[in-house]
């Protein structure tokens, strides 16, 4: 049992780490807030003083704002739908006893270890290039006209690239959950004459619900800030400009730190709304 003295000692020892972590979080946050209320144009002489809520108003009234929010949500929802559905299927497949199971599992997980920029470059140049890409050769082999993936179907292409990267994560979490499923329960259902689809919907899926929620929660947090894949493949063109990409454009391309910081504050608010919403669902799931 902890004494009063040992508790104080623990607090003392933890304090440096807590202070460091808080500073790590708070300093950039406070700087973003500070700059969002200032006219800060590095190419025009730097900080030019207070501007009130002008940056906030300009950021949301810009014609690029709502399309960017919409694009962000489409990518998040698209990737989540693909990774969860395919993740469940793959997890069930990988749970079956098969020859070379270890190697197959490593291969399935491998994309998760590839850097986002590298995977985007590989997809762009080796697969999706309309002249020299693998897909264009495949299309031509079957007598079809090659598709200009990254311009004609930019959003589906980006969703595909990002899904490819996140599918292993979803599969891994869901596989672990499936392995914890009591096989006797399934056998009993089978003996009672429940067909495979019913066994899946009434036993496997409810068992996976908590794992699915965790996958959705973690992926959403990362996907809201998606950037590298868009930067490498389309440069924000063809309707692929997400909120984080818009902030990048405002701060780095337009060199308007104040305006971009206001965008950053909006992004933080949006991410927190989503996180709180999802945490409530997780909490509900855990209670059940």
């Amino acid at each position, binding site marked *: 049992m902890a004494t009063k003295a040992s508790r104080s000692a623990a607090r003392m020892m933890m304090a440096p780490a807590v202070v460091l972590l808080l500073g790590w979080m708070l300093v950039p946050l406070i700087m973003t807030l500070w700059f969002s209320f200032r006219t800060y144009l590095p*190419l025009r002489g730097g900080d030019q003083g207070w501007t009130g809520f002008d940056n906030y108003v300009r950021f949301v009234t810009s014609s690029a704002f709502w399309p960017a929010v919409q694009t962000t949500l489409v990518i998040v929802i698209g990737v989540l739908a693909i990774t969860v559905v395919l993740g469940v299927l793959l997890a069930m497949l990988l749970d079956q006893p098969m020859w070379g199971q270890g190697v197959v599992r490593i291969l399935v997980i491998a994309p998760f270890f590839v850097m986002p920029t590298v995977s985007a470059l590989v997809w762009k140049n080796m697969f999706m290039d309309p002249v020299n890409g693998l897909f264009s050769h495949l299309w031509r082999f079957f007598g079809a006209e090659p598709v200009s993936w990254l311009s004609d179907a930019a959003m589906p292409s980006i969703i595909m690239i990002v899904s490819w990267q996140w599918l292993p994560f979803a599969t891994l979490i869901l596989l672990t959950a499936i392995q914890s499923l009591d096989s006797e329960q399934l056998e009993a259902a089978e003996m009672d004459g429940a067909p495979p689809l019913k066994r899946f919907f009434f036993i496997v899926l409810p068992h996976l619900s908590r794992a699915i929620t965790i996958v959705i929660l973690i992926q959403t947090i990362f996907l809201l800030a998606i950037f590298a894949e868009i930067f490498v493949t389309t440069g924000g*063109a063809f309707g692929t400009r997400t909120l984080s990409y818009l902030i990048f454009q405002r701060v780095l*391309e337009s060199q308007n730190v104040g305006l971009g910081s206001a965008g950053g504050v909006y992004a933080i608010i949006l991410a927190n709304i989503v996180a709180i919403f999802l945490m409530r669902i997780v909490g509900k799931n855990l209670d059940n």
Partner: protein
Amino acid sequence: MYLKNALRAATAFALVTGAAAQAETITIATVNNGDMIRMQGYTDDFTAKTGHTVEWVTLEENVLRQRVTTDITTKGGQFDIMTIGMYETPIWGANGWLVPLDGLSAEYDVDDILPAMAAGLSHDGTLYAAPFYGESSMIMYRTDLMEKAGLEMPDSPTWEFIREAAAAMTDRANEVNGICLRGKAGWGEGGAFINTMANSFGARVFDEDWNAQLDSEAWANTLNFFVEMMSESGPPGYATNGFNENLSLFQQGKCGMWIDATVAASFVTNPNDSTVADSVGFALAPNTGLGKNANWLWAWALAIPAGTAKADAAKQFIEWATSKEYIELVAANEGWANVPPGARTSLYENPEYQAVPFAQKTLDSILSADPQNPTVDPVPYVGIQFAAIPEWAGFWTEVSQEFSAAYAGQQTVEEALAKAQAIANEAVEAAGYK
């Protein structure tokens, strides 16, 4: 005893710092264009001459621009030398962000730099960046395909002729596209090309009172012509093609014509890299008879950010890389066709270089570009493929994204131009031009 030790320590310290002052390691940010890659291969020559070593950070054009701009505005100090162009140099020089390149040695012969290049890389008469190579843009075309189509390229063709020739050379079954042009979003990529083309169609970005002119008929004509010609004769996915993508297509024999930087001429005529090296011809960039050819003026130049502790070593590197000796070094090893072009007058007076097939056309293109009067109607800005204002890179990148979306058929030309008009007006209003 104490004094003796102190003296020894001081001597050792002086020796160490002295040695450090003699041999530095400088970090250079550069673009992944062929001439720069070649320069990296000769770094040993610089190290042997000066003792300084070099660390390279080689980046794709759009990325380089963002990295060096961020570094200079935040005083990040990551680089001792930056590769920048005619857009950045005067603005950064005026802000005091670059070390003036004065006091260069007599052998360097600063007066030999082509006047057009020196003017574009100066502010108030002070040179802030030395041109590694200079360029305009011109037509590079396949002489064999032209002949097969029964056509002859004029010295200074019109856009109508180019469109007809492109259609005649297109052979989709054999993956030959009549014309390859930049459509990739980015102010220095597709954005630079379309602006230059618009100048030749009589369009301008702003009128003299800084009112955006992107809703004008001339701009609609430019974009409609471009989209129609590229749909008829361009490669698939041209909306994502920039300089390097088109270079690769041309070298693979998949383009009949390519209108782009004059510096590409050495790469498309190099038999080691190009499958069509022996059948490439050159002509001035097209026009519409209004007195302006669609050719830009640009230099990729080396500059020293103010605040670097290694300015002396950096200056030595710049003197080495942009010198006549460097040009001779490359010529001796790889032939005159492969030297960095467009920077020095003496190069174009050299009879050996004059024998290079694209030398004269490059010079003619450079000399015909006039950044002070880039458009048919007067404008309040300087620059051909850009307007030399700090806001340009930001808003023209957005404009070029709208154009790329129109190239890909995601919106009409009219929709793209309406959005571009709003973006441009918003940018100059926010910057206080009107």
